[in-house]
């Protein structure tokens, strides 16, 4: 793991709000984290917790009526939160790349794969079509696509889902970015394909020193892949620390709930733990801690929104009543397996 002084990306107090007719939706509210070269950060949360919007905010791809309204996004020290459209365009795909969730939807169905790859290179570098084509072929081979030369001339619908995601990953790698934001890239795939892709991505990060933000709702994926983990709930980071620390000794009740709701072999026959209720609407969050309505440890202080505290060393937790190491008999061994 490379260790340089300046993180590849540092997000400080990011706020992305959507100004809808029904009111302001605070999709991302005060989110901070950083990721260094070669490091993988896992961004975990349920649907609607703001993790995808965080990803889009980094690339400046938040659609109307959403806007980054506060905080800093530092790419190698440069604040790009309010960078010009042209500066962002040059960064996208070149320095910061993104892989999307559904491989069936990310490739344009009416354009050939080579068109979609070559344009990604030519958008950033003044190279000939032949050279760009050659690089595209090399990238496809790198992600393990056989007969790359032929495959380049195909249309996306001629590929399987796993193959398409490999193409998308190849496109993300084309310009050797420093940072890849991967938004649940394996969720839509079969388990075996998921394993292959995880393995290859991990290998590539180590080899090239690319930093990666891996967005997912699947704790087991993060356990095997990430160095650090950020747990998000209702647009906020509720817990942040290294993967082993957080999964072994979760301090936030929500993290604990997530870990406990992973089905496990060791507890067969026992009722599966679950977090009661559903994610609150971001339009009218309860006053105070947004998790209080579902939290087993709720207390009088929860009427006030908790600030970030450090109940354990090297850990950010947003809770008035954090779980202490002894209390939580979190069966982490299965998760990490």
């Amino acid at each position, binding site marked *: 793991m490379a260790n340089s002084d300046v993180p590849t990306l540092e997000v400080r107090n990011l706020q992305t709000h959507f100004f809808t007719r029904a009111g302001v939706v605070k999709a991302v509210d005060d989110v901070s984290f950083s990721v260094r070269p070669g490091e993988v950060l896992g961004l975990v949360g349920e649907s609607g917790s703001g993790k995808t919007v965080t990803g889009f905010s980094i690339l400046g*791809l938040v659609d109307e009526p959403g806007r980054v309204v506060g905080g800093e996004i530092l790419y190698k020290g440069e604040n790009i939160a309010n960078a010009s459209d042209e500066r962002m365009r040059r960064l996208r795909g070149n320095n910061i790349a993104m892989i*999307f969730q559904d491989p069936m939807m990310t490739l*344009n*169905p009416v354009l050939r794969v080579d068109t979609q790859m070559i344009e990604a290179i030519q958008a950033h570098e003044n190279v000939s079509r032949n050279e760009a084509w050659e690089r595209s072929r090399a990238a496809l081979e790198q992600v393990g696509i056989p007969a790359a030369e032929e495959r380049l001339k195909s*249309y996306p619908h001629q590929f399987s889902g796993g193959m398409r995601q490999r193409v998308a990953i190849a496109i993300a790698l084309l310009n050797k970015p420093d940072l890849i934001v991967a938004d649940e890239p394996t969720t839509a795939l079969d388990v075996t394909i998921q394993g292959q892709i995880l393995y290859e991505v991990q290998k590539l990060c180590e080899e090239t020193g690319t930093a990666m933000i891996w967005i997912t709702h699947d704790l087991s994926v993060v356990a095997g892949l990430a160095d650090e983990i950020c747990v998000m709930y209702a647009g906020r980071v509720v817990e942040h620390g290294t993967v082993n620390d957080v999964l072994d000794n979760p301090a936030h009740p929500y993290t604990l709930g997530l870990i406990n709701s992973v089905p496990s072999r060791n507890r067969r026959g026992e009722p599966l733990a679950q977090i009661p209720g559903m994610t609150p609407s971001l339009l009218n969050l309860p006053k105070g801690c947004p998790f209080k309505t579902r939290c087993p440890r709720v207390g009088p202080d929860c009427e006030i929104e908790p600030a970030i505290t450090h109940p354990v060393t090297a850990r950010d937790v947003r809770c008035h009543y954090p779980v202490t190491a002894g209390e939580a008999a979190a069966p982490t061994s299965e998760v990490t397996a």
Partner: protein
Amino acid sequence: MTVFIIRRLMQAALVVLIMSFLVFSGVFLVGDPTEILVADDADQAERAAVIESLGLDKPFHIQYLRFLTKAAEGDLGESFVFNEPALQLILDRLPATMELAIAALLISIVFGIPLGVIAGLKPDAVYSKFIMTGSILGFSLPTFWVGIMLILLFSVQLGWLPSTGRGDEIHYVFGFPTSLLTLDGWSHVLLPAVNLALFKLSAVTRLARAGTREVVHQDYVKFARAKGLTDQRVIFVHVLKNILIPVVTVLGLEFGGLVAFSVVTETIFAWPGIGKLLIDSIGLLDRPVIVAYLMIIVLLFVFLNLMVDICYSLLDPRVRLQDIKA
């Protein structure tokens, strides 16, 4: 691809046959041309002579079979009024109608697609709402009334453009007469073409807008932006190529609609095309011309449908694949 085209051609032939039967029986069963063709003071013998010379005394199926065999030879009967082959009458006037319809089609594409894409990219902007309300106005305006208003404004009040006819300077290009080679010709075609285009312009605008709105929210557009492509490339390559598929389909089919609707425009602007011929023929119950017009229109529609299918498969690789499998 060849199998695909042959299969479509056979389907097309069947449709033409069915339509020929419907058209012929429709025209045959109702309306009596002798009322018009025979003078009121004619005696029984003169009447019978006219009926016999036109073959109107034969039973229906004989008349239909005769019509079919002759139609196969390109003979759709002779106009009662002009005493000329009906097909020839239609073919003489077809280029004028085509010229008008193509001009109208171009107007709707050239203005409609950009307007629709603009309105679709920013659906909440004031100008987008303006475009959309305008398009409602566009398909609400009755074509014939707009035509009259255009004449009233540009011909009568301002005196800028001529209100009738096609102009005198007809030139031949590859054997097709056209008036589009001279300024005078253009001045004649402009008002009728705008008039005819208005309805389709709204349709194309709305279609392009709906397509754009759907496509811009697709992941592949966001992914294209995530690759760092310029907005121009995203819009002109990724968005446009996807919305062209429905637009081309509809436009192909709508071209037939333009030819049909030219009936109204040609009547107002005294444009010497097949639409005006049809209205005149209906007024005079000139049966062979009506039948010939309908057969030509049916052929045109069938041909257009075929062309649309082929264009569709060229534009959308997914369709192409299905055909290879099929």
